[in-house]
């Protein structure tokens, strides 16, 4: 019961956070120094009073601020995200999100997966063999990997893969799976539309989509990979010295069984919150990675909207991101209580 209460408390806490975040976004966009209405017009149209008035009317800016605020937030809370003005003019933001989100989710999923499956084993390996040359190499490369800026790594990796034939001696585009469209561009996810099971029934398409996203996912996951490695290493080092490990050893349990059954399973606990906390980094980093790799995902959409001055779209997207992050956080809390039953008893 206590655990349920803990999760419920976290869900309840999410609402004021959502409300505050949305309100701040509204204030910045609609009460800030830039008039969102004139921003949507061309420099010619800006001169005509009637056009400006019409744009203000459509955005509801001629109404009292409080009324506009209530109207804007309440329509967001029922998931009416409004329409776009400059980016894909006139389309429904909700439809746009449905269109763009899968690519970002695909990218995020693989970057988390790569980070988890490379970072954690490396960290555990370094932890089990602490203070050996292998440990030092793994630790230092993890730290450097963490400090590399995503955008730079993306630029370098992209150039390497585009020129892979002359630089690396193999052609990335035809390696294993054929990618006629090259390294950059959207992963082909359309085959799954309306039939999510196609992910498994059409492995050729799935592999192509994975290969397409792989370089971007590797870059996006780089920081997390380094992080998970460090934390994995520390977790193993700490668990190694626990009494139950000594006891198992005294009992004559084999080294292999100690490492797999006693050390690894307990060392995994501190890693769960880390994986989900990194959602922040993934969403922020997606702007740069998607821009470099030319993926039309949420990050690029947000960036284009901001650069071109489609402020209403920026506001709606910000709301989507806040909701996304809150959902990820709540899922993390639920997962965490399942893995470590002690959570929630002493949480504040």
């Amino acid at each position, binding site marked *: 019961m206590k655990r349920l209460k803990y999760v419920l408390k976290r869900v309840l806490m999410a609402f004021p956070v959502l409300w505050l975040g949305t309100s701040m976004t509204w204030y910045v966009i609609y009460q800030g120094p830039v008039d969102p209405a004139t921003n949507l017009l061309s420099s010619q149209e800006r001169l005509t009073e009637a056009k400006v008035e019409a744009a203000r009317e459509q955005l509801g800016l001629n109404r009292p601020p409080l009324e506009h605020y209530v109207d804007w937030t309440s329509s967001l809370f029922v998931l009416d995200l409004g329409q776009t003005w400059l980016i894909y003019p006139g389309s429904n933001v909700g439809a746009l999100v449905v269109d763009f989100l899968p690519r970002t989710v695909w990218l995020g999923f693989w970057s988390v997966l790569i980070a988890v499956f490379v970072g954690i084993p490396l960290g555990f390996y370094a932890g089990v063999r602490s203070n050996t040359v292998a440990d030092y190499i793994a630790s230092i490369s993890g730290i450097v990997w963490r*400090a590399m800026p995503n955008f730079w790594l993306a630029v370098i990796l992209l150039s390497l893969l585009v020129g892979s034939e002359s630089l690396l001696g193999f052609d990335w585009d035809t390696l294993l799976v054929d990618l006629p469209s090259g390294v950059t561009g959207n992963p082909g996810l359309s085959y799954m539309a309306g039939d999510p099971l196609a992910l498994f029934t059409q492995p050729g398409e799935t592999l192509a989509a994975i290969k397409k996203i792989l370089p971007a996912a590797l870059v996006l996951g780089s920081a997390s990979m380094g992080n998970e490695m460090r934390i994995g290493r*520390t977790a193993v080092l700490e668990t190694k010295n626990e009494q139950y490990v000594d006891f198992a050893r005294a009992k004559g349990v084999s080294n292999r069984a100690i490492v797999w059954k006693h050390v690894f399973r307990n060392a995994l606990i501190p890693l769960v919150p880390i994986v989900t906390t990194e959602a*922040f980094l993934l969403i922020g980093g997606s702007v*740069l990675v998607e821009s470099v790799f030319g993926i039309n995902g949420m990050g690029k959409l947000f960036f284009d909207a901001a*650069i071109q001055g489609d402020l209403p779209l920026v506001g709606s997207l910000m709301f989507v991101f806040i909701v996304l992050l809150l959902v990820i956080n709540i899922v993390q809390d639920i997962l965490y209580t399942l893995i470590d039953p002690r959570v929630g008893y002493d949480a504040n």
Partner: protein
Amino acid sequence: MATPTRTYAESEADALGERVSRNPRPALIWVGVSAFLLLLEAGAAVEFLLNVLGDFLRAVPQVGRVQAVVNLQEAAGNVPTLLSRETIPNRGYYNGQEYVGTFMGLAPGTAWQFRVGLIYAYSFALLAWTWVGYDWYRTHYRVADWTPRDDVVDRLRSHGWGLFGLAVVFMFFVLVVFAPAVSPTTVAANLADPYGHTMTYWTGSGTEEITVGQANLGAQSQGTPQENVGPWSYDKYGRFHPFGTLPSGKDLFTFIAHGARISLIIGLLSVGLSASVALILALVSAYYKGAVDLSVVLISDAVMGMPQLLLLIMLTVILSGTWIGKIYSGAFVLALIFAGTGWPAMWRSFRGPALQVSEQEWVDAAKAFGQSPTAIMRKHMLPYITGYLLVYGSMTLGGAIIAIAGLSFLGLGVNPPTPEWGRAVNAGQDYVATSSWHISLIPGILITLVVTGFNALGDGIRDAIDPESDSAGGEGEAGGRGGGA
């Protein structure tokens, strides 16, 4: 040294002045040598400070160019400094027999190396002398034989990784402070106004004078072996480029050295601001707890609920047109935005230690004694969290440098033509796989090195102040990544 039989506070002992006058020799030597070292570079130091001041004043529209500051700047420029480009010039030309205008007739590259080598030797000497000063103070003048801080310092001294970070950070600071002196050329002549400056070069049969702008056109790095000036090479006009040139033919080292300046100024300003806000809030929320704590939790959660990099993009776009967005090429507003979006992460890191301290008996005692809340926070709680300030400040600074570079890579933040590292990466992104690979690669490697340095320094300080701590904490780590840039 014998252990003192009774302990007493510094305030009960004689004044520092009296302790010094009893044994003045070490103090006099130390002050004399420091004064000598500082005098060598007095001009450069004053010029740096005035430069920063002048930039800020010029950027505020109401004030504009203050003539007094400009005059002072010129006067400071006339103070002879040992390690300046005037004393050891590296720009000159070959006249058929020898180099004219360079230091002792050396080749421009050698002269530049000599100057940079001297500057770094000087800086490390200054650092070492500062340490000697602390050491002498400890042995000759401090009342106590031992203080807890000695252990912290000793732990940091034996922390190889932390020392590596300290060295990298120190070298970065030297690059920033001495940017005009370590650059092979000046911002004015090479980056800002190349057509307003002329230079002489050896054509092969005689010397000729052209504008720097024209020379830059002949020194472009465009990816082909013919049109490329790589690292550590001379261009057709006899100019030495330690890091090669940009696609526009401008000198990459000068660009990077001055870009480091703006990165560090934004970083320090934003970390200083957000750390102060976080510190005050941590103290207040830990002292009052309850509703105060809860409301700070909510506000910080709301700010952190928006991805920092997206928030940065949104705010830079919205604030770029305002007067505040124009101060210091947009750097000032960037620092404010960083501070505004960065304090919650820091506050989270300070909250735990602050709460722990607030539970201590001495805080209760001070309350019972009737001390005012501000005095309790300042005297009895603050000293225990300042260590964490250094740890997270160092890590956040690294993250800020990444994020600033990421924004300028996207074309946001610091306005061109002010140099910024991210813009160099952007300018070179089409040339990575060509012979002009240096344009993107070198700034990226430098960012990685500097950020690693700040993280290592943070690790070192954390292990020094709190050796029991978990060396890979989760919460604060995200702050060191610049929101994922």
